[in-house]
């Protein structure tokens, strides 16, 4: 049916990437460039009483030092979100209070990285130490205020109270939870914990800045949000937006970690002041400690249900460790409810309460899954517990109780991002089929019964189990996110596609080209893509919230349709036939009557040089009235070594509804990558701190990232549906699949052992502890 979409097209930058031809931020070096190094706080909570940079400045080759003493005290949020940001304005480029081990003390720029690092050692800082909050559950009652009298404030009308260490607070309810819970015949109350994690994009964060020939500031950085970088740097560095250009080169992975404006203001200020290019690249250790992380969470679920398993009352109470600053504190928290609770939309009495608390630990931020990962860990197990109690198969349970096309959930409207949400009816879903396919491919029924801990099969040392869970996410933020695209025709019949959309390695440049190709019926090679350059490409909010294919894709589709109209009009004029008698076919405008046709090349030449001359060009913007959820069913089969406590994943099956996949191979790749990241998070990824708040496992070696030798067999099935509001029926796929490993493995563990895992990651210690209970 389609020629260019719904195909496994090769990435347009693929061969350039695998031959090392493509350039990433750190690959750019300019003449006379300064290298920047940052001094980080070794204390979790301290005030800088005195900072003496004189010795550093005397060092040969040092060009300057930036600290709170000579930079603006303008408050902002490092979260790269739309304006006004829902995250609190609680930080400065350099603060005089250090709020976690890794906070920025000051920065040095020098002729070489070595000199800059050497100079850092000569900076003398006198700190007065403060008591630190290192346990997020005790933050509110600690009596230690982390943002005291520093003018931190919220930019939008939301509850923000730094005097209670509250970075965010969210409450929403539907029906009456209390009443329904009280009268429910069966009840459950469970507490779950999820941990810190690093995104571990293999490319560390970097920024390179310089002044162009007219004195404008150019920023090249590893960003998911070039337009937000321009706006935020302008605001904190007090440089007009007209004087800033942000260019995103190739990006070595983001996963949310690069939706953060951390390095750009520092490099930009050095360049702005010294008139010299500057480069700042984080070390891996800095990425672990000073960049952003996944928020640590405690979730408490209270469920009341009938004897037949129908949940009548559900309360999710979330406590989020925001870390030292409140980046994404509010929105990750809201999403813990809004991306999970609508799934079981027949629950009539729902309550969501949440708080994001400040601590003197590394900062949370956006991380693939964005709150949903944290909440699905508990929700997926609650559903399993209800099924264990009633004896119903969880697969049948999910089929019965999950949201269906044509249905809605009041949660969509009740819970937005810092404001009310947007009411939405589900338009597309192949969830039921996903569950069926996943069950079949994982041999669910046979194995679930065989492994059941009560059958005796698992009486030995090695215990096998199979578990599953069902997930949803969103596609862009409804009525908030905007994307746009511009296209023009060239005289050989090729096109320039200029889009603000940000390809982080996700393949969006390719996917957007496929969409334009499909509309115009021309091969991908005829589309020349330029993306993410604030001087040349139109606005796009950036790559986050699972939005690029769905939102930017629709902008490109509308734009290409605008181009198509113009080509048809000029083609009809050339063929001397009525507009409704021509069609676009294979790079030609063809008359529906007779055999006459003109090629795209002829059309463009005509429009440039012959008659009624004009440039065939179009632009389009897109905002979505809804955020259609992708759905997925994940099945994990595991083996537990009850002697060592090691969990081995034997098989993992995911059936995913992302609407119509524009690029089937890249969609599979998104799912596989997210699943492996999710598995590693479930099994071992964590942050370990010293008693003074210093991160102990701040390297790949100590942190542990899954390698090719570690991965279990993973099978992904794309189960298409058609989303009316998306380009050619597409929804999102990037985030959802990181949510399944935690609940699916935990449910498999119960199937194997009859025990529950309430705290992630499932390390051997925790497994053994669970087995002993």
């Amino acid at each position, binding site marked *: 049916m389609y020629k260019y979409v719904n195909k496994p097209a*090769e990435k347009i930058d693929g061969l350039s990437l*695998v031959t090392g*031809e493509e350039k990433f931020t750190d690959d750019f070096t300019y003449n006379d460039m300064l290298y920047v190094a940052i001094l980080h706080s070794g204390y979790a909570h301290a005030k800088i009483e005195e900072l003496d940079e004189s010795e550093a400045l005397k060092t040969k080759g040092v060009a300057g030092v930036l600290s709170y003493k000579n930079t603006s005290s303008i408050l902002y949020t490092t979260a790269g979100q739309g304006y006004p940001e829902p995250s609190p304005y609680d930080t400065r480029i350099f603060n005089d209070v250090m709020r976690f081990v890794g906070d920025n003390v000051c920065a040095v720029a020098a002729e070489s990285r070595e000199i800059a690092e050497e100079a850092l050692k000569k900076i003398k800082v006198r700190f007065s130490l403060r008591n630190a909050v290192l346990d997020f559950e005790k933050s509110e009652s600690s009596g230690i205020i982390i943002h005291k009298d520093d003018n931190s404030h919220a930019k939008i009308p939301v509850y923000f109270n730094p005097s209670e260490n509250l970075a965010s607070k969210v409450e929403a309810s539907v029906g009456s939870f209390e009443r329904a819970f009280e009268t429910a015949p069966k009840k459950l109350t469970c507490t779950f914990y999820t941990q810190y994690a690093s995104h571990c994009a293999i490319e560390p964060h970097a920024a390179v800045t310089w002044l162009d020939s007219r004195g404008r500031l150019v920023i090249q950085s590893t960003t998911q949000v070039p337009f937000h970088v321009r706006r935020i740097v302008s605001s904190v560095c007090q440089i007009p937006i007209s004087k800033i250009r942000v260019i995103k080169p*190739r990006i070595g992975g983001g996963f949310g970690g690069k939706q953060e404006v951390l390095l750009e203001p520092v490099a930009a200020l050095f360049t702005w002041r010294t008139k010299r290019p500057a480069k700042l690249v984080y070390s*891996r250790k800095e990425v672990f400690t000073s960049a952003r992380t996944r928020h640590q969470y405690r979730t408490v679920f209270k469920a009341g249900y009938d004897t037949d398993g129908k949940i009548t009352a559900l309360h999710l109470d979330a406590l989020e460790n925001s870390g030292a600053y409140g980046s994404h504190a509010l929105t990750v928290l809201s999403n813990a409810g809004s991306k999970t609770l609508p799934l079981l939309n027949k629950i009539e009495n729902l309550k969501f309460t949440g708080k994001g608390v400040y601590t003197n630990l590394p900062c949370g931020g956006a991380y693939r899954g964005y709150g949903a990962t944290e909440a699905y860990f508990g929700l997926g197990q609650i559903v399993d517990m209800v099924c264990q109690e009633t004896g119903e198969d969880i697969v049948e349970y999910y089929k019965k109780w999950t949201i269906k096309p044509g249905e809605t959930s009041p949660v969509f409207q009740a819970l937005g991002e810092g404001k009310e949400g947007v009411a939405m009816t589900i338009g597309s879903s192949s969830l039921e089929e996903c569950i069926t396919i996943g069950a079949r491919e994982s041999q669910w029924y046979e194995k679930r019964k065989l492994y059941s801990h009560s059958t005796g099969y698992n009486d030995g040392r090695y215990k096998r189990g199979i578990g599953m869970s069902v997930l949803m996410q969103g596609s862009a933020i409804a009525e908030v996110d905007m994307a746009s695209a511009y296209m023009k025709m060239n005289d050989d019949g090729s096109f320039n596609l200029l889009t603000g959309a940000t390809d982080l390695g996700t393949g969006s440049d390719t996917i957007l080209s496929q969409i334009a190709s499909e509309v115009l019926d021309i091969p991908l090679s005829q589309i020349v893509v330029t993306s993410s350059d604030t001087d040349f490409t139109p606005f796009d909010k950036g790559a986050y919230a699972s939005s690029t294919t769905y939102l930017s894709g629709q902008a490109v589709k509308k734009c290409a349709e605008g181009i198509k109209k113009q080509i048809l009009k000029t083609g009809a004029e050339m063929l001397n036939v009525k507009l409704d008698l021509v069609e676009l076919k294979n790079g030609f405008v063809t008359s529906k009557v007779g055999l006459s046709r003109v090629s795209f090349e002829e059309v463009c030449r005509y429009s440039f040089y012959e008659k009624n001359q004009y440039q065939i060009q179009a632009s389009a913007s897109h905002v979505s009235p809804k955020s259609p959820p992708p759905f997925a069913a994940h099945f994990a089969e595991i083996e537990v070594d009850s002697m060592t406590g090691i969990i081995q994943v034997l098989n993992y099956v995911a059936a995913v509804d992302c609407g119509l996949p524009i690029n089937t191979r890249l969609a599979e790749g998104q799912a*596989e990558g997210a699943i492996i990241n999710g598995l590693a998070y479930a099994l071992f990824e964590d942050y370990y701190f010293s008693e003074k708040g210093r991160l102990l496992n701040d390297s790949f070696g100590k942190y542990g990232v899954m*390698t090719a030798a570690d991965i279990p067999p993973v099978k992904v099935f794309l189960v298409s549906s058609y989303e009316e509001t998306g380009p050619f029926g597409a929804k999102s796929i990037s985030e959802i699949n990181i949510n399944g490993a935690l609940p699916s493995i935990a449910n498999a563990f119960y199937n194997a052992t009859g025990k529950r895992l309430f705290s992630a990651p499932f390390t051997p210690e925790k497994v053994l502890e669970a087995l002993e209970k």
Partner: protein
Amino acid sequence: MKISININSRLKELEVKPNETLLSALRNNGYTEVKCGCSEGECGACLVLLDEKPVNSCQVLAMSIRNKQVKTVKGIGTLYLPHLIQKAFVEAGADQCGFCSPGMIVASYSILKETGNRPSKEDIRRGLDGNLCRCTGYVKIIEAVGMAAEKSLQEETQKPEAVCTNM
């Protein structure tokens, strides 16, 4: 201090500092296809071939490799004359962000070389164990190496190995 190194079949004089790593020396001299992901020998993004043996260039002092042969990903194949491993990576969709790709290609090249283009799945998994990738979950990378091995075997019987020459 100047040292002579043969890089991608060309003799180069590089200006290096006494304590400089090979990774830094290569990148500072324009070989930015060698990537830096951690500087700790953990991620494999900086993997190059040193006398045909894979090494993390961040763990080698530039001074220590006088008169040795260094091969980066571009020495294996270029955009204009890609190696079939590189083509297989693109075909399989093993290329997402592509930051780990140069190291992955070097590792894959070694796997094929060491196993005479007959790697088992286990050989592939073990051979890629030193290279981290966060985007793909390795599924398509493992597939790509398998595809490349098959193609190499086919070509082995047809013609001699393609040699990349930079004219």
